[in-house]
């Protein structure tokens, strides 16, 4: 087993195991911590894929930003008060069946997939490469995403602020 393979399986286990825990834990705080583990695993996979920029972005934005936001809200509304309650929908078999069917279909299809031939990454550093691509080829979404974030900021402030 190569070192890379070892790391891949380790990170994959973290990602999937954390994810599985996150959606099954009754406590929202525990779920958030499990989610963090999962996100860390994904970040590790990014590193293996030589996407250093995303590795950093994942850690800072996701784990530093989004998760913090989640924890903050969980604390604010005292979510764990609901721990003793039923955690799953009454109609959970339907959801489980849908997921299972989708999973089987997608897995079977994926197992037959033939990807186009692989290409080598350019030799430039990852961060430069990403920055170049972003600003040359993806200028429009870059501009639009600022709108998106503006809307999100205005919207969340509007919705969450106390009433006058």
């Amino acid at each position, binding site marked *: 087993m190569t070192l890379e393979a070892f790391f891949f399986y380790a990170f994959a286990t973290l990602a999937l195991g954390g994810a599985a825990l996150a959606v099954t834990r009754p406590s929202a705080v525990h779920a958030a911590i499990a989610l963090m583990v999962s996100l860390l695993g994904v970040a590790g996979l990014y590193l293996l894929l030589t996407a250093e920029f995303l590795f950093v972005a994942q850690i800072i934005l996701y784990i530093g930003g989004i998760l913090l936001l989640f924890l903050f809200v969980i604390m604010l509304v005292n979510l764990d008060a609901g721990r003793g309650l039923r955690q799953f929908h009454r109609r959970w078999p339907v959801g489980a069946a849908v997921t299972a069917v989708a999973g089987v*279909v*997608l897995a079977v*299809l*994926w197992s*037959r*997939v*033939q*990807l*186009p031939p692989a*290409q080598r990454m350019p030799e430039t550093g990852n961060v430069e490469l990403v920055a170049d691509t972003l*600003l*040359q*080829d*993806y*200028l*429009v*979404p870059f*501009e*639009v*995403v600022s*709108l*998106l974030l*503006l*809307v*999100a900021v*205005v*919207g*969340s402030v*509007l*919705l969450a602020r106390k*009433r006058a």
Partner: protein
Amino acid sequence: MSHFYTDVDHFALLPAILLALFGCAVFLFDFLLGERSRRWQLALVLPGLALTGWQLARQGEIAPFTAFHGALTIDAFGLFFNWLFLLTAGLVALLSYRYLEVEQEHQGEYYGLVLMAQAGAYFLAVGTELITIFVGLETMSISFYVLAGFLRRSRRSNEAALKYLLLGAFSSGILAYGFSILYGLAGSTYFADIAAAVGARPAFDPLTVLAILTVSAGVLFKIAAAPFHMWAPDVYEGAPTAVTAYLAVGSKIASVALLLRLFLGPLGTARAAWEPLLLVAAVVSLTVGNLAALTQTNVKRLLAYSSIAHAGYLLLGVVAGNATGLRGVAIYAGAYVFMTLGAFAVLLGVHGEELGDLNGLARRQPAVAAAMVVFLVSLAGLPPTAGFVGKYYVFLALIEAGRYVLALVGAVYVAVALFYYFRVVRCMFLEPAAEGVARVGLSAGVRVALGVTGVLTLGAGVYPEPLLQWAVRAVLK
């Protein structure tokens, strides 16, 4: 300007820039001036829309072109849908004016979000690159999530926003997953490259099928087609009525534009794989929408189910797979804008949403009731209204494609739809009014909106030629 951002690029982006600028201006004025600005916000929105319209008109004067290395394609198709967005946003702004005051949530952010949603929709109509489309879609969707929850005091509004967000974000995730597969397939996010890559693969290639499955799930959700429709009735019912109007019209036709761009563009050569999917979705949508609408007592919910059925008709036009079908989709989309906004304008005008609220409307406000009859007849698809022309084209397209059974199914559901639409008519004309219902004055905005939609719905039915000519040009090659 640099080669990253040429004059052409700028010209292509200008309508969105204007919308964003005016949106920001609304946010800013509200922030700086507070209460005092609120009376003038409409005076900011309408010129913004007018300037946008001017730019669209300028774009329409020249031949189709692409910008940003093919990320945006300004063609008649995109312009057609953008004009529809413009009309929608303008009418929604007019409708919202008094409504927000009555609901005591008259806040400036509202109009800013309306413009931002339209800016996002702009990229759905002209975007030919996955990331642009995705970000545009999300800009629009997030604006709608916030708008749906705009009545913060109302639990129904909160819940509608929450449901919309949870399911909307889920569907965006699935759609993005599909996009990631398309990228994996082509190694590029530009439609031209993806189309070439898909075309080079054999029919029913697993990777293509995977992309189609996930992309269609996401898009069908966005246009509220069965079996991904379950959010629509709740969200339509719970959201503020003016927002529901925007949601039902703006979000739906923007997503239809997205669907056409994706399925006729990069996925065009894989037609054999997606056509059956859309066909099933269309028939199921017609069935679910029409049958569920039969028992509704809330008019907003009824219109939600009917909009699911309309998604079915739109999909039938795509399934037909010929030029007539695409023309039909464009005409149907146009008619849908007029008649649906009109119906919601009536609901806003009478300040009610239950069937019972409409009882005796013909006595209190005969003109409003008469206008509602026109909209309902058009929604059902009877002549001489715009809705008939749309359905006519869809049926014609199906018959040209030899799909007689589908045409017949679509036609039979017209009769079913009439049953529930005429329950509304019955309430307005044949039932006595409840005690103590006062005649409500119509705001100027509602009057204008009713007039415009009424004239367009009836006019496009009696003399459809201009609409047809316009729609013919808008067909994607």
